[in-house]
């Protein structure tokens, strides 16, 4: 099953959605400004509907089935969130309206800041960053600004990053002009304290910690590592991608993290949208709070008439690093996250508990079938090795074969420190029955690896397309539509 490009449905002169005729006198466009052609598709509305409906059916989402993509927290996205974000009183607000006319929206943002502060144990939160990676960049800029204000801006140029970290950590550090120093993991998957100690000097800007780390493990050296870095004058950046393990379990801010981003599209159930929009608010400790990107929402005491009806307004943190984007952040995502948090309240702890329960249960079911490189209590996810001794099977083959069983594959080949890594995060919204079915599929695949390895190597067999030639795509770049001599006919017998 393939689907033509929407351009291939185009017929010159065909009309889609039309607009009204002008109801005002027309003004001619000046000479020399007008564009010549506008090579957009010319299709009918039903073409559009069918095309994108068929495309959607070629996609796998959480709504279709189990999606244990490690580090991505593919939990169920409640449908009420979608309805709330579409309320006209949210969807049709212009970002430059006077605060007086958008008190509901500002109240929502204010309370979301407060909720995130409480969940993360931070002194202040900015909702600005558009995604986790932008939150990281902002957080690192805050750390740099802090050092600069203490006259150490030029000196503190080293960012310490464990080798299990997400790639965004070094990338963000580099964007902020820092040098990246890799810190190895010890045999239990923790930050290697000796290696860390060696790097701790007056050139350290900070340490970036993902906790639980990308092995799904709570770092047993966490407090000591934080202490080491703090003692040499560095600050701690927290990569909050894995907060789904920790809500109500512990507060990073309380444990010494200076700044951390939250992924609303992971922990707080907002949909990932096939690649965004996410949102990456950041929380900061007392000393970093003045550096948060702005604006943030605060109560304007002067304009508050009744104490139970505060007047909300945008303010700038005192020493803000500035804006990281135009306007006020991904408001539509905030509405969804707010709704989710309000539906759980203190019971968010149960969310994290169930997420960790599910991961440990699935790990227990897979242990003995696949090698487990760091085998201890995991948190919300865990890493196994996609190898079957005595067979040529790789993690990629297992991933592709899982598709034939109706599952989305786990994250593969990450973290980099585990060969043939399969990183599995079930999330709390999956039932025991689903986990059992997945474990059973993994067991059968291990059998198939021995009995019929070729079947795995040629997997997937039942997807809209078979295994795709990624090397070819990179070699002979085709990155946009160009009219083909003979477009594919719309209906092939199958």
């Amino acid at each position: 099953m393939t689907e033509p490009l929407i351009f291939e449905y185009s017929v010159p002169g065909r009309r889609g959605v039309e607009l009204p005729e002008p109801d005002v006198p027309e003004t001619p466009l000046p000479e020399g400004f007008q564009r010549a052609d506008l090579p957009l598709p010319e299709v009918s509305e039903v073409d559009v509907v069918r095309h994108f409906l068929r495309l959607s059916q070629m996609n796998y989402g959480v709504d279709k089935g189990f999606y244990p993509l490690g580090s991505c927290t593919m939990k169920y996205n409640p449908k009420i969130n979608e309805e709330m974000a579409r309320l006209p009183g949210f969807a049709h607000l212009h970002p430059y309206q006077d605060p007086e006319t958008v008190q509901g929206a500002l109240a929502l943002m204010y309370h979301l800041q407060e909720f995130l502060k409480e969940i993360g144990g931070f002194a202040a939160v900015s909702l600005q960053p558009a995604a986790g990676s932008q939150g990281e960049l902002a957080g690192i800029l805050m750390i740099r600004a802090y050092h600069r204000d203490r006259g150490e801006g030029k000196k503190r140029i080293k960012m310490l990053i464990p080798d299990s970290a997400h790639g965004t950590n070094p990338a963000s550090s580099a964007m902020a002009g820092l040098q990246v120093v890799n810190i190895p993991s010890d045999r239990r998957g923790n930050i290697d304290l000796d290696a860390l100690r060696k790097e701790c000097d007056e050139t350290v800007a900070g340490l970036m910690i993902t906790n639980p780390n990308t092995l799904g493990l709570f770092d047993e050296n966490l407090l000591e590592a934080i202490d080491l870095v703090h003692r040499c004058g560095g600050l701690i950046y927290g990569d909050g991608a894995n907060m789904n393990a920790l809500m109500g379990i512990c507060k990073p801010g309380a444990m010494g993290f200076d700044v951390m981003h939250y992924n609303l599209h992971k922990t707080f159930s907002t949909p990932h949208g096939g690649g965004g929009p996410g949102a990456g608010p950041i929380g900061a400790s007392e000393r970093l709070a003045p550096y948060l990107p702005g604006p943030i929402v605060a109560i304007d005491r002067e304009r508050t008439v009744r104490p139970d009806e505060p007047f909300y307004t945008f303010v700038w943190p005192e020493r803000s690093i500035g804006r990281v984007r135009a306007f006020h952040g991904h408001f539509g995502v905030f509405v969804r996250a707010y709704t989710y948090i309000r539906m759980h309240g203190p019971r968010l702890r149960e969310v994290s508990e169930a997420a960790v329960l599910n991961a440990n249960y699935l790990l227990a079911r897979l242990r003995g079938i696949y090698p487990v490189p760091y085998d201890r209590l995991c948190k919300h996810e865990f890493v196994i090795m996609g190898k079957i001794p005595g067979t040529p099977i790789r993690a990629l083959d297992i991933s592709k074969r899982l598709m034939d069983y109706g599952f989305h594959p786990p994250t593969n080949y990450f973290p980099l420190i585990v060969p043939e890594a399969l990183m599995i995060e079930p999330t709390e919204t999956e039932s025991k029955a689903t986990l059992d079915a997945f474990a059973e599929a993994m067991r059968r695949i291990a059998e198939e690896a021995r009995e019929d390895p070729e079947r795995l190597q040629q997997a997937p067999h039942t997807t809209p397309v078979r295994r795709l030639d990624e090397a070819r795509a990179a070699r002979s770049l085709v990155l946009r539509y160009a009219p083909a001599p003979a477009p594919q006919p719309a209906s092939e017998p199958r």
Partner: protein
Amino acid sequence: MRFIPHTEEERQEMLRAIGVERIEDLFADVPEAYRFPPLNLPPPLTELEARWELEALAEANTHAGQYACFLGAGAYRHFIPAVVDELLRRGEFYTAYTPYQPEVSQGTLQAMFEFQSMICALTGMEVANASHYDGSSALAEAVLMALRLTRGERPRILLFPTIHPEYRAVVRTYVQHLDVRLEGDEGWTREQLREPLAVLEALEARLDGKTAALVIPYPDFLGRVLPPARLRETADRVHRAGALLIAVINPIALALFDPPGSWGADIVVGEGQPLGIPLSFGGPYLGLMATRMAFVRQLPGRLVGETVDREGRRGYVLTLSTREQHIRREKATSNITTNVGLMALAATIYLSALGRHGLRQVATLCYHKAHYLAGRIAALPGYEVWTEQPFFHEFVVRTPRPVEEINRILYEDYQIIGGYDLGRAYPELDGHMLLCATEMNTREELDALVTALSEIGGLKAVAEAGKDPL
């Protein structure tokens, strides 16, 4: 419990399989002093209660569907055909992750390929990425890209002063710890700002061997469109100086005006929100980014490429990921990972539904309505309109009373959300308002604004609606 499916029995069974007694045992590795802190959050709500609360919050706002609204300034209210949301709400699209596994993600991937193709078509460029967070961060990334393309040997970036002020602020944030100088966008008088061609000339004169890029807006923050023929000269000058020309565009305007690809831009960025994305109090929006094929390896963000599967069928994959953070780590072109895929999908559906003809209609309506409104306001005593350049979406009005005051009266007495107060971002434009009109503003609304401004101006009479306004 809300979205957790386990029954107590299942929970016990799972704990037994793990080999622990209680859920708490799973957290033995968390330092005891910090374990299980109280979560001081308001008590949980059911879906019905949450709906009530959120509806109340939404109703505490006045929105652009209730009052006539003349705000633009980077976020535009356009008609969104019903078909866009109908398709966007398909769970297979919006509950998918970034398409790392192409065999089960052809829907997202093909749509992104179509998006890239459409952005190329609109901008006249050769390659577009699969979106960036928003227009402002796309500009910041374009500046970083220009620095890389000039091998870090040219630390200077020239910014046109009437690029969106918040975009310029974002660029400043991104480069604050790098050895980069942002110049050209400050220190102009009101008279100078009113003559964008003179500003352009002055900026061109500052091009030198240390300049990595000149960034120009098209149209600018004040709605003005510079002549394409003149910009072709600019491109020549920039290129002769060994620098790059970056354009910040409005995609709807490109349905009418000669696209940057045709006058020589090297990198094009812009805010894609007008392409079928609701105002939503400022986000999520859609960063657009396109360039020449020669620069593709320095382009940040996701790229979808065409390939074939093992049976020779056409298919799509993420490609050139060696540019990206998960492969290259600190050597990546950017740290970006999650972008705004769903917004790109919205734009793709929007552009498909309207097509060549529909998008032209939208742009034409905006053009006529803004000019009609400008013409009528120009005829009001006490108001002055900047009409030297052709403009799109919006235009500058000097007002006889403080803008804030006018806006308050418009809101309270006329149920109108007025214009953007230019004094907020440009002190030298204090007393000036930026007014925007799109296809969503009926003539009735435009005339009502004119009447209101006339009354607020404290000056009676003026031409009746429709009487030869220009």
